[in-house]
Structures are given as structure tokens and as C-alpha cells.
């Protein structure tokens, strides 16, 4: 029998990615997409979901540089990329860092791909 605390936990113990694809869920009642996965839909409060995977390739939505406390600090470029389902019908915005040298090496709309990683979202540019 679940404890009082356990019965209120809404986090789902699911892998963040499957085959490097974003492992989200889609509400079977209203179609809302939830990521990270939870036990309820935050739109209709439904609890019936189907899995939905987003491909690791997408494009840059926006980005910026991190704050440098010291001139010697390494600066990172971070922001959001839009990823799509295989059929292209649904998309999701995922935040992460971009594996580029500097702010001038990235543009909105650049094609990027999620690097396989268990902990962090790191995007590499896809050179065309």
C-alpha cells in the first residue's frame, strides 16, 4: 500500500530519451503533450496517455550567451530548439546548450541535433 507521500507523487519514472528521441506522452483525451512525463494532464486533468517520441533533429528557436562572472570564465551558448515527431505533425521546444564556439556561430533557424547524453541537452549544429 502506498504511503501518503507516495500516493501524491506525480513524477513518472521514465527515461528522458529512447534511442536519443525525446520520450514524451500525449493525453488521449485532449491531445496535450507532457514532457517531462507526469501522471496527469495539466490541461484536462486526464490520466490516460500514449507515448510520443520527438526526433533529435530540429532547428534553433532562439539563443543567448551565458553571464560571465570573470573574463576567464568559459562562455556557453544556450537557448531552445524545436524538435518534431517523425511525421512532422507535432513539435516541442527543448532548452539546452549549443555546441558552438561563440554567439556569432549560431543563427535562429539553424539545423541542430541532440547529442546522446543522459544528463544534459546539448545540441550540435548540422552543417549543410
Amino acid at each position, binding site marked *: 500500500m502506498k504511503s501518503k507521500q507516495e500516493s501524491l507523487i506525480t513524477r513518472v519514472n521514465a527515461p528522458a530519451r529512447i534511442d536519443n528521441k525525446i520520450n514524451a506522452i500525449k493525453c488521449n483525451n485532449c491531445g496535450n503533450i507532457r514532457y517531462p512525463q507526469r501522471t496527469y494532464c495539466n490541461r484536462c486533468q486526464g490520466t490516460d496517455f500514449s507515448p510520443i517520441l520527438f526526433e533529435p533533429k530540429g532547428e534553433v528557436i532562439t539563443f543567448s550567451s551565458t*553571464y560571465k562572472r570573470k573574463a576567464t570564465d568559459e562562455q556557453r551558448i544556450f537557448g531552445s530548439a524545436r524538435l518534431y515527431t517523425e511525421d512532422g505533425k507535432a513539435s516541442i521546444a527543448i532548452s539546452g546548450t549549443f555546441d558552438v564556439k561563440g554567439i556569432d556561430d549560431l543563427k*535562429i533557424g539553424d539545423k541542430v541535433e541532440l547529442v546522446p547524453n543522459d544528463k544534459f541537452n546539448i545540441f550540435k549544429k548540422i552543417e549543410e
Partner: protein
Amino acid sequence: MRNVAVVGAGMSPFGRLDALMYQEIGRPAVNDAIENAGIDRKMIESCYYGTCGGVGVGHEIMSEAGITGIPITRVVNACSSGSNAFRLAFMDIASGMSDCVMAMGIEKMKNVSMGVVGGGTRFQIEAKAYSYGSPMPSGGGGGMPAGFAFMGRMHMKQYGSTKEDFANIVVKSRRNGSKNPKAEFQNPMTLDEVLDDVMINDPLTRSQCCPRTDGAAAVVLMSEDFVKKHHIDTPIWVKGSAMGSNMAGGNDRRYYEDTGKWYGPGIVTDYLTTQKVYKMAKVEPKDFYDRGFVECHDCFSVSELVHYEDFGFCKKGEGPDMINDGVVEIDGDLPINPSGGLLSVGHPLGATGTRQVAEIYWQMTKDKEVAKRQVPDKHLDLGLQHTLGQPGMGFTNVMHVFSRDL
């Protein structure tokens, strides 16, 4: 609903006030507001005070100001705490519960951890990092400047705005702030100085981000009956009050469902709340060009620019024209932030909303407080006040319209 007026305002200097206790900052603001209103402090029947970090300080401040035994309510809503407190004070009187109410805001931020005044829970950080499953970005897991830096970059891409456009907002702000003896920053800055400043989150340099500031501001509100009974000469009437919120990232699912598209770059709750407050006050954006001015939430240079568009003062993408053509200067067609705004006056989270109301009151009554930055008379018929808070996962904003006429 009864008519409500602002009848007095007071404000402490804003800046680094390390040596002062909350009571030493807040009590003078309260006393100045009471003196400015010309009333007996015993007339105040309740108080709402906005503060994120100052637990219980409103009670202490009012007690030290000789006002006890009244309902005192702390309001916490991030950067909208002070204006939320004002809105509750307005509703207290409008509903008929009280006739004379004080709205106050106070914050000490210079030597207080941001974790006290506005940290992030795991859920909030997660929601910001993953945009709640929507296809539009949120704060990216970064801090406050990052979210607006992201918005600025999208604006540059979509509409061709430039880093110089955003930096010119600061040049204007500092010019106005130099005429405000209570502002934290009173030194003008050139465009090059703003652009060459320390980079925070590209394209936002340090001077394009409002400072964490100590300060307090208080205003007195009264019912129409009380105004007449006590012969108040210069009431400024609250014609509209509205509040809204949206999910992380400046977007909202409900807007998407209603229109079929995500809002942006911009802040959807600003757009939607503006419609509500305009409707209540029976005004349109063009009325502010004819006879009004604005105090809005310029937490970052990008935010002020998108406010021009979200409030309907120009089309999406035309915000740069408003700053570059001088439209929003004190002597322009639509004065915006004559006080210097958050970028120059500073941003003590709980006090900013009441500080903006104080500025509007002083401008409309031509108080000596604003002598050096007085908005021309033709623009004093209407005032728009706006704050935008981020209490966790989304935005919450509060807006009011004021008028000299009942």
C-alpha cells in the same frame, strides 16, 4: 462598484540602503503619503503591502507609523506584488468595505539572497527548461535576463530590430532618471556606453537589466464619498484595474486554442490584460497618444520595447520606431516612463508597482516631486500603470488606468 481615487503618495530614495532596516525605509514613505494626502492617519482603515522578502514588515512599519488595529495584508506576487497590493486596496474601497486604504510596497534586495525574494522550485525550473510541452520557448532554464534575451533575439530575427534599438531604451531611461532625485541611477549614458557595458545575456548588457534595489513607496486611496467629505482637491481616479497571467515563456495555451497560433515574440498576458483594462476604463491605445502617458515594467530594455507593441501603441515589429523617433520621450507624442522606469529608478520587487502609481499621481497633480521631469499638461488626462511579475512558472501582470476626470 464605487469610484476610487488616489489622494496622496510617498516614496523613499531607491538604491543601496544597506544601513537601514525595513522600518527605516518604509515609515518615511508611509508618513510622506499621509502628509501628501493631507489626512489624519487615523482615517486609514486597512493596508495592503507588497513585498517578496519582507515577512511581517508591513505590520511593523504601520505600527511604527502610529497606525495599528487595522487589517494589514501582505501581498506576494513577485514583481507585481506592489501593484497587486494597490489593486486589492482599490477593490477594498470599490466593494464598499472601506473608505480610506493604504497600499504600500517595500523591498530590501541589495544584501538579501535572491533565493529569499524569488528562487525557483524544481518544478518551476523544469517547466521553464521544457516549455511545458509547447512549441514556443520559455526561459530556457536560465535566469530572468535570459528569457528576455531570447525574446529580443526572436524580435531581431522576425522584425529586424537591432541591438541599438534596445540600447536606445536605456539611453532614454537614463536621461529621465537623471531628473529623478530618488532614482538609483541618475547618470545619463550614451548609446556606446550601453552597448559596451558588461555583457549579461547577449544582446542584453548590464545597463539593459534593471538593478536589484532597496526602497519603499506608499499611496493613499479613498472612496468618492470620502473625497468629497474631506474636500480633497486633487483626486486622481482609478478608471480601470485588470490582472492576468500566462504559462512559462510569455505564451498561453488558452490563447493558442482561441487563435490557433502562439503569441510572440512578446508577452501574451500583457496583450490580453491590456484589452481588459482598456475595456473597463473605456479607452483605446490612441487615447494615450492624444492625452495620456505610461509607467510600464521596463525590467529589461527588450521588455519595454515589446510593451509598446503588446499595449497596442504600434504594430508588432514597430516598437523600434517609437524609441528611435522620440515618440516615447517626456515631450514626445506618448511619454513612457518619465520617472526613468525600472532601468534607472531601480526595481525593489514589492515597491515598484506602488512607486509607479506614485509617479502617475505626482505627474497628474503636477507635484513638485516631478518638477524636473514634468509631462506636458496635454498628456496628463490619462495614466497607464503596468507591472509584470514572474512568480515561478509564468508571468502575472497588473494594470491600472488613471484619470483626472471622474
